[in-house]
């Protein structure tokens, strides 16, 4: 009985010491998110690819974590989100992607990642900014439309000039031929 009591008391004494360690273990996560240059300026509706690096300094054991990705606008509105659950040991790097909504307005946005060990509160965050620009296809389509319009106008103009000048060319040809015939005969 005395042995059990002393064990229990030791445990009670040790518990406060252990707690900070577990807290330390839970808080010892680091997460970094980065965007390749090609995704720092994207159009609405496109997919954004990124890399995530997670570090677990609190334990060598495998830990289950949830990564929450959010795209946040200037007014702090979340326009897109995604979650991912995985197990990491000390560190992990991987590639992720998230879709930008079709109706996202041009402007500055942030891609935020929040790391939550399963069963614990949020401990690590990272974010990176990027720009949403007007759709390339729209700009390209407009460019092609202008080129097509210019080509059509050019053709119409050429046709008009040809129609107007055609009788003049015919007359020039006739006069030239008459001159040649008269010169030959006289």
């Amino acid at each position: 009985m005395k042995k059990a009591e002393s064990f229990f008391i030791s445990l009670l004494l040790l518990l406060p010491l252990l707690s900070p360690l577990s807290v330390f273990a839970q808080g010892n996560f680091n997460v970094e998110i980065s965007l390749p240059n090609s995704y720092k300026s994207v159009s609405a509706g496109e997919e954004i690819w990124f890399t995530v690096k997670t570090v677990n300094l609190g334990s060598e054991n495998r830990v289950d974590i949830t990564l929450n990705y959010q795209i946040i606008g200037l007014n702090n509105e979340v326009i897109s989100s995604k979650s991912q659950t995985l197990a990491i040991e000390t560190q992990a790097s991987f590639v992720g992607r998230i879709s930008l909504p079709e109706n996202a307005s041009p402007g500055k946005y942030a891609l935020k990642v929040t790391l939550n060990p399963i069963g614990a509160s949020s401990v690590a965050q990272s974010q990176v900014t990027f720009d949403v620009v007007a759709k390339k296809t729209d700009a390209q389509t407009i460019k092609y439309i202008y080129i097509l319009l210019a080509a059509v106008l050019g053709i119409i103009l050429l046709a008009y000039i040809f129609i107007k000048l055609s009788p003049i060319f015919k007359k020039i040809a006739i006069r030239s031929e008459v001159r040649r015939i008269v010169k030959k005969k006289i």
Partner: protein
Amino acid sequence: MTSILEITSVENLQSRINRSVKSFNNDYIIYVSLNKTQKSVERILKNEGISVSKIFFIDCVTNEKTRDDVMHIPPTDLEKLRFAIGSFIKEISGKKFLVIDALSTLLIYNDENKVAAFVKEVTEFASKKDVKVIAFSPKTKGEELLNKIFNFFDDVKQ
């Protein structure tokens, strides 16, 4: 200069043309051939002892170019024909005559009013340039046209 419209029977048409051409033979002639090819006309004239050395042919019957001193103009293109006649009149210096055989043949290819307008333009231009115009037409064809163009000529012979 005068302009004459000769209306005659089909049988006498060519002989009347030959006679006129013979009378102008020392001067240049612009011959608009509407019912015979230039080749045929030349043969007929030569058979009559008429020299063709001073005749400039505008062949409106065929577009087959056998000689490079003959102009070929389709009878459907009155504007082109008018311009060609005008060009010949301008280019040939000295005295010259304009002969148009079988004027009413133009009715086969053109509207009557257009032919009348063509005749008016040609006779007016020729008159300004002191060119005598002799136009022939068969009696049996194009009476309506003849009624319209009588007044464009200084003299009408039947």
